[in-house]
């Protein structure tokens, strides 16, 4: 009898996992003992870090996507479909139009959802670069922005790519300087807690960089309401910021599917942070942004988690005890302007060292963005 491994989500986690399984379970797939079904809502795979470069005209929205079918091994059954419900007792998914899909092992890579409507006025008054439409709109807005107050506000955490807001203001600073406009543009960065970033060492580095580049820093700023007519951002702490251009990192949510399936109360799947197995159901894994683990919601996390889940699923299929574990490995390149960058790497419970930014690391980041497509294929 054929065992079915279902993967829901064609983002970094789901795609890398599918390709790793195609490699690790090659004999079982070819003999028909196992099938791997990747369910993704859409035909394209999207590499979201590309969107950071779109507002500055360095990349286009189309650069961020490629057809999933071009990236995934031919032994994987790709279904362009949408999961409407998950029944972990009966091990069954309900697809669009009510069709069932039975599984033996399930991995959820549902990603994070942007919910700008959660904050009054944000959708009307704010911009962002966390999705294709937002990044394109912000590109058009920035192109005509020659003077005034640019405010970047991190509205809520957790959010995808935690370093990206810091990168954005450092890039904006350099970009306006290059264009001879910096003296006419004031830049302010706000963050919800008492420092510039959740990770202390990154916060220390960012604070120093902001001071050096005349970027205002507002901490303990939890945006409460945007007034698009007056151009004012209000905070829970009673502060007000006048803005001419607001870049608001929107609140993020997990998935109602997860709540409805009883896999957590808040929409992020409760998992063992080392095995990535769901704590509330048998034979269910989660990876990438949807998995509630104490590290960043970043592509590198999904990538490394996928390797662990692939090893564990392969062990299950072979009747072995899985031993692979995820130790929180996270790597982030951080742009420090338009032509220099640094990078950090860390694991659970460790603080990263922020290295001095350099041009070679910036080139490495750009180079990696191109070679990412090898990562998606499970090769890098």
């Amino acid at each position, binding site marked *: 009898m054929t065992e079915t491994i279902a993967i829901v989500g064609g983002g970094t986690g789901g795609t890398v996992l599918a390709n790793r399984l195609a490699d690790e379970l090659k004999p079982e797939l070819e003999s028909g003992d196992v099938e791997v079904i990747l369910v993704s809502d859409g035909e394209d795979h999207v590499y979201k870090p590309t969107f950071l470069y779109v507002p500055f005209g360095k990349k286009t929205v189309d650069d961020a996507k490629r057809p999933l079918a071009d990236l995934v091994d031919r032994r994987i059954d790709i279904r362009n479909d949408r999961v409407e419900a998950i029944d972990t007792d009966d091990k069954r998914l309900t697809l669009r139009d009510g069709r069932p899909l039975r599984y033996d092992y399930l991995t959820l890579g549902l990603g994070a959802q942007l919910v700008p409507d959660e904050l009054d006025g944000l959708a009307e008054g704010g911009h962002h670069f966390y999705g294709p439409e937002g990044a394109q709109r912000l590109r058009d807005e920035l192109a005509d922005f020659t003077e005034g107050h640019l405010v970047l506000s991190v509205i809520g955490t957790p959010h995808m790519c935690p370093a990206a807001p810091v990168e954005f203001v450092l890039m904006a600073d350099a970009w306006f300087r290059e264009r001879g406009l910096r003296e006419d543009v004031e830049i302010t960065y706000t963050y*919800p*807690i*008492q420092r510039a970033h*959740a990770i202390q060492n990154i916060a220390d580095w960012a604070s120093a960089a902001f001071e050096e580049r005349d970027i205002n820093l507002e901490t*303990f700023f*939890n945006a409460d309401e945007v007034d698009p007519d007056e151009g004012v951002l209000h905070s829970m702490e009673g502060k007000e910021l006048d803005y001419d251009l607001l870049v608001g990192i929107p609140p993020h949510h997990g998935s109602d599917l997860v709540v409805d399936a009883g896999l957590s109360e808040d929409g992020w799947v409760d998992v063992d942070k080392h095995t990535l197995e769901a704590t509330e159901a048998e034979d269910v894994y989660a990876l990438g942004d949807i998995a509630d683990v*104490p590290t960043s919601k970043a592509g590198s996390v999904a990538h490394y988690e996928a390797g662990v889940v692939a090893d564990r699923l392969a062990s299950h299929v072979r009747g072995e005890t899985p031993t692979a574990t995820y130790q929180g490995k996270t790597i982030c390149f951080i742009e420090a302007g338009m032509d220099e960058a640094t990078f950090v790497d860390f694991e659970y419970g460790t603080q990263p060292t922020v290295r001095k930014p350099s041009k070679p690391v910036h080139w490495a980041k750009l180079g990696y963005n191109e070679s990412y497509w090898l990562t998606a294929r499970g090769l890098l």
Partner: protein
Amino acid sequence: MSETEYDPDVTIDARGSTCPGPLMDLIGKVKEADPGTVIELQTSDSGSKGDVPEWLDEAGHDLLEVVEQDDYWSMYVETN
């Protein structure tokens, strides 16, 4: 288990979560709470003992009591 006189309207279990998780969980609840709501934040992150009072002071809410339990702290907060 230590005792407290406060009977919370809302309890947030942020045990196991690391900074800034417990504080952000608290901020999220405060945002949707009516004035006078008593919230118990359960946290095992020692950093919460610093950043939670600091934020409450900034945002104008009250820290009623911090109770040390076996392997976590209960921080009782009242919204204004």
